[in-house]
């Protein structure tokens, strides 16, 4: 099957004053549809840069990024916005809910961007919130919700347009261990039940057990790619314990 996301020799150079910072040095990566992929690496490894490329949020200095066979470079900004809206659901470390909107409005706005009328958008948003177990919190603003609940709202917002891909940037980074595991379980369920490809950037080894593939990034390049069976062994050796 053709990969849903593909990068070919992606290079990213940031200009910091007179100095050039090579964030990525020719990364080629393929992600298959329906996979749960974790991009691992310490901060400064280029992990976030690669993640942003894959998510159509940033463009490479050299090389190509393909999403569902489309070369992102060939698309207009309106087409990129369409892809971000309809095909990719974004989840952030700090949840990124709009503080002045209720849970329902936060989800509904994503639906409105996809061209739905407000009434229909609110109905679909309520459905998505029910799916993440927040049917009783529709009218709460983010400040009235716990971190775990806010991340659930963010997941509802990410799935309301039924995307093919969910991109999660350190989704458990601001959550305690238990809540983090609940969020990972929810993401795994989205993969299993809806067939969504989940791509996360993380340095949280708890994320590994849910992953089909783990990509380790080091110094702007791919250090190692491991599949599920190898990952299980790694967790044991890294953590000294198996995390469910």
């Amino acid at each position, binding site marked *: 099957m053709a990969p849903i996301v593909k990068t070919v020799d992606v290079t990213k150079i940031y200009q910091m004053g007179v100095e050039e910072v090579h964030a990525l040095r020719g990364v080629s990566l393929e992600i298959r549809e329906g996979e749960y992929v974790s991009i691992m690496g310490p901060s400064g490894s280029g992990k976030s840069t690669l993640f942003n490329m894959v998510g159509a949020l940033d463009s490479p200095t050299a090389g190509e990024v393909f999403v569902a066979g489309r070369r992102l470079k060939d698309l207009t900004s309106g087409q990129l916005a369409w892809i971000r809206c309809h095909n990719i659901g974004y989840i952030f470390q700090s949840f990124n809910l709009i503080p002045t909107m209720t849970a329902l409005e936060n989800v509904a706005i994503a639906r409105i961007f996809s061209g739905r009328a407000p009434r229909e958008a609110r109905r679909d948003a309520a459905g998505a919130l029910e799916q993440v177990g927040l049917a009783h919190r529709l009218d709460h603003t983010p400040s009235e919700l716990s971190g775990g609940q806010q991340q659930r709202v963010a997941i509802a917002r990410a799935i309301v347009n039924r995307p*093919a891909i969910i991109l999660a940037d350190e989704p458990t980074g601001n959550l305690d261990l238990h809540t983090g595991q609940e969020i990972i379980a929810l993401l795994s369920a989205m993969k299993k039940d809806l067939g969504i490809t989940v791509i996360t950037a993380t340095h949280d080894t708890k994320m590994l057990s849910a992953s089909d593939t783990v990509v380790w990034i080091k110094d702007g390049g791919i250090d190692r790619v491991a599949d599920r069976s190898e990952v299980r062994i790694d967790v044991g050796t890294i953590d000294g314990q198996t995390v469910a």
Partner: protein
Amino acid sequence: MAQTDGQAWNRGEQIPEQTPVSWGIAFGVSWGSLKRRLFRSLITMSGVVLAIAFLTYMLVTDSIARALVTANVDRLNLLLQRAGVDIFAAAGTDRRMLLLIGLSLFTCLVGIVNAMLMSVTERVKEIGTMKCLGALDSFVLKTYFIEAALQGIIGTALGIGIGVLVGFVVSLNAFHGYVVQFFPWGGACKAMVIALLIGSVISIVAAIAPAQWAARKQPVEAMRAEG
């Protein structure tokens, strides 16, 4: 295979352009944002209220003074002279007052621009997030423009009300019942229309730059760690 809404996704069709969001929906988003940041919005608005109230006050008291001078009643002329109105020139607004009004309006313009630019800086991550959700530049432009313009126009309306009221009370205090007797309805209406026009123009001009600046923010800003 994922069941997606993106119909063109799996079929190798041309990716469509994202559909813009209507002004009506943008208005709803801006209004909600203003309402829930009420205190903040009121502070931004207060600059406009003060400047426009000052302008309206000057225009209204001038109009009343002119009307009273034209009335040419002996006892009233005495009151006018005591109040320092030049009854022979019959023109209350001097150059210094015009300069003051101009300065206060300019300060008000700079105030709105400053407050809105800060508001954009504070909400860079929010704008980035909206763009990740599929917002176009035009949506961000519309919401920030409406937000700034609304603050300006509501502030203008409040400023006009306060200016007329204060102008009337101050004149009443100086010239007593003559103000009611010779109240310049036409002149007061003219003053209000002038203040409304000036206030609206300033609000809209001040809204343009911050809205454009907001619209240019990139979706990747959503990933910023701080804020």
